[in-house]
């Protein structure tokens, strides 16, 4: 070792523990973003996004062509009316609440698969390789550590859902600025229901945040329990597949009370998300659905349960290590 004459004291200001949250998230994200499998799954998600994006682009292009070819089309009927009908029929691509309903539903499936595979990298490794004492011996509380991990998952979910949704929204806004300015854009055009404008933008952000927050808490809890990939996948399959099957069997098959559908966590999430997007409760499929507040209560209860478990789990690491 070098002579200690070269050792220099360091004098500087130390940040508050809250500043540690981002480095913890950054390290977790760094491990994930260097994995090829993540980019493969992200590419699948992008394919879905591109389908929506170019679908909307095609629709706008077709509308422009209809305007140009108005004289030829005029023999068939009123082009503007024809186009309104097309847009109303293709609500999945017209930037309305249905567009984002389907977008989040499809992207959500990719997100759940990605998180099942990434959970051990993002969180579980710290428990499996006993890295947790490294973090907890620093001047941060266990909640700063957990928040850092949740932030990493939050960013991943946002990258795959909210960010592409915002880009889709932006595409429609650039196409027709009234889409951004007029909350009653679709109602006025008779091309759809639900809000547009800033209300729709906030709804998208709300839906994305709901997904991100819930999935981040759930993943950190399950990954700290299971730690390695295969058991984590099995738990997530149980939570998002088997519980869904069970709920459908109980409600749709055996015609039991719709509150049994609350067992399906993904349904609870999409139910609340569609509520954010402005869907009326009665219009949400599959019917019947439990109330919005019941879904919110279940998700809140699951989150609280996860947080209690995480508090216990990290405390036992402090004792044992």
């Amino acid at each position, binding site marked *: 070792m070098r002579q200690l004459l070269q050792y220099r004291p360091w004098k500087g200001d130390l*940040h508050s523990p809250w500043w540690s949250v981002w*480095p913890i998230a950054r390290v977790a994200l760094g491990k994930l973003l260097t994995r090829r499998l993540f980019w493969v799954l992200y590419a699948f998600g992008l394919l879905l996004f591109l389908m929506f994006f170019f679908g909307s682009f095609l629709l706008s292009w077709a509308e422009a062509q209809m305007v140009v070819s108005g004289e030829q089309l005029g023999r068939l009927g009123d082009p503007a009316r024809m186009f309104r009908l097309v847009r109303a029929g293709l609500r999945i691509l017209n930037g309305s609440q249905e567009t984002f309903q389907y977008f989040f539903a499809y992207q959500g499936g990719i997100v759940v698969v990605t998180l099942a595979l990434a959970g051990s990298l993002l969180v579980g*490794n710290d428990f499996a390789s006993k890295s*947790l004492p490294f973090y907890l011996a*620093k001047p941060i509380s266990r909640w700063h550590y957990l928040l850092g991990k949740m932030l990493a998952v939050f960013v991943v979910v946002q990258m795959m859902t909210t960010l592409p949704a915002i880009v889709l929204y932006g595409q429609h806004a650039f196409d027709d600025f009234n889409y951004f300015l007029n909350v009653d854009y679709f109602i006025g055009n008779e091309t759809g229901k639900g809000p547009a404008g800033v209300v729709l933008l906030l709804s998208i952000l709300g839906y994305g945040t709901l997904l991100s927050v819930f999935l981040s808490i759930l993943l950190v809890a399950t990954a700290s329990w299971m730690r390695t990939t295969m058991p984590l996948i099995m738990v997530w399959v149980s939570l998002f597949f088997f519980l869904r099957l069970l709920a459908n069997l109980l409600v749709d098959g055996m015609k039991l009370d719709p509150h049994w559908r609350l067992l399906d966590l993904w349904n609870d999430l999409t139910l609340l998300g569609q509520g954010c997007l402005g869907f009326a409760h009665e219009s949400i499929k599959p019917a019947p659905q439990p109330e919005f507040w019941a879904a919110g209560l279940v998700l809140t209860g699951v989150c609280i349960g996860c947080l209690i478990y995480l508090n216990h789990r990290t405390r036992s690491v402090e004792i044992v290590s």
Partner: protein
Amino acid sequence: MFIELHNISRSFGSNHALVDVNLALESGRIGLLGPNGAGKSTLMKILLGLLPPSSGHGRVLGQNLATAGVELRRAIGYMPEADALVPGLEGAEYVALAGELYGMPRTQALRRAHEILTLLGLDDARYRKLEEYSTGMKQRLKLAQAIVHDPSALMLDEPTSGMDPAGREGMLDLFVRLGKEHGKAILLSTHLLGDIEKVCDAVVILHQGRILCQGPVRQLCRRRHDRYRLQIQGDPNGFLEDLRLEGVQVLHDNGRGEYRVQVPESWTNQAFFKLAQLHNVVVRGLQPDDEDLEEMFHRVIEENRDQAPG
């Protein structure tokens, strides 16, 4: 005052890891000695504010143990016994991350990480993954992450574990210099008495959750009036033979004219010189050979065993 504890106890169910621990230690280089299961790691975690005591109260570096865990860990650099590495990171990233977790700004943490790694001889390995580090390199890396933010105190748990002799010597020299030249308070927990002897001025002996003794090593090691260190010049054979005949036991001969001897009760120092004169041997040095740390440690453990009820 570095550490001040009053009646600290900690139990895990029916297991009493610490029982009525009272400590008053000034800043310095302090060794924490004890066999496995003595409670050293539990005590360290309490001092770091990671574990609350079941009863009692205390202060470390003036901070209240019960309420100031975060401030304590900011002021203390902790080098754990276990690896506690973050897989997938490189050496420089790992130490810089530690700096950021201590609260350093990122650019300063990175700069300081490189500086510390160079100081500890890990400059060539700074861009290697942690999984590729040898045991000795991991120990130095753990020390690097403990000192990156230049703490005022260090808590080191088995810091030389698994190191080769040269690396161990270097590490121990570093601790002495950090304590003497840079004024850092050091708490060194180890099984290796040699490490304590080389580094520490004071020692705390812990056994079955209780403090058996604490204080400066020189005060705790008893003066032995029946043992001496003897340095002679000349042919030792006849001299040593006569010593043995007089009842003197030669405990150690280093082959260079230096001996440790144990004398009978009635012996006087003059007898050494008389015998030396008889055999034309020059006595170059004669000092009382006090109890060393290992002897003191075993004595204290035995005394405690004798005093233990039942």
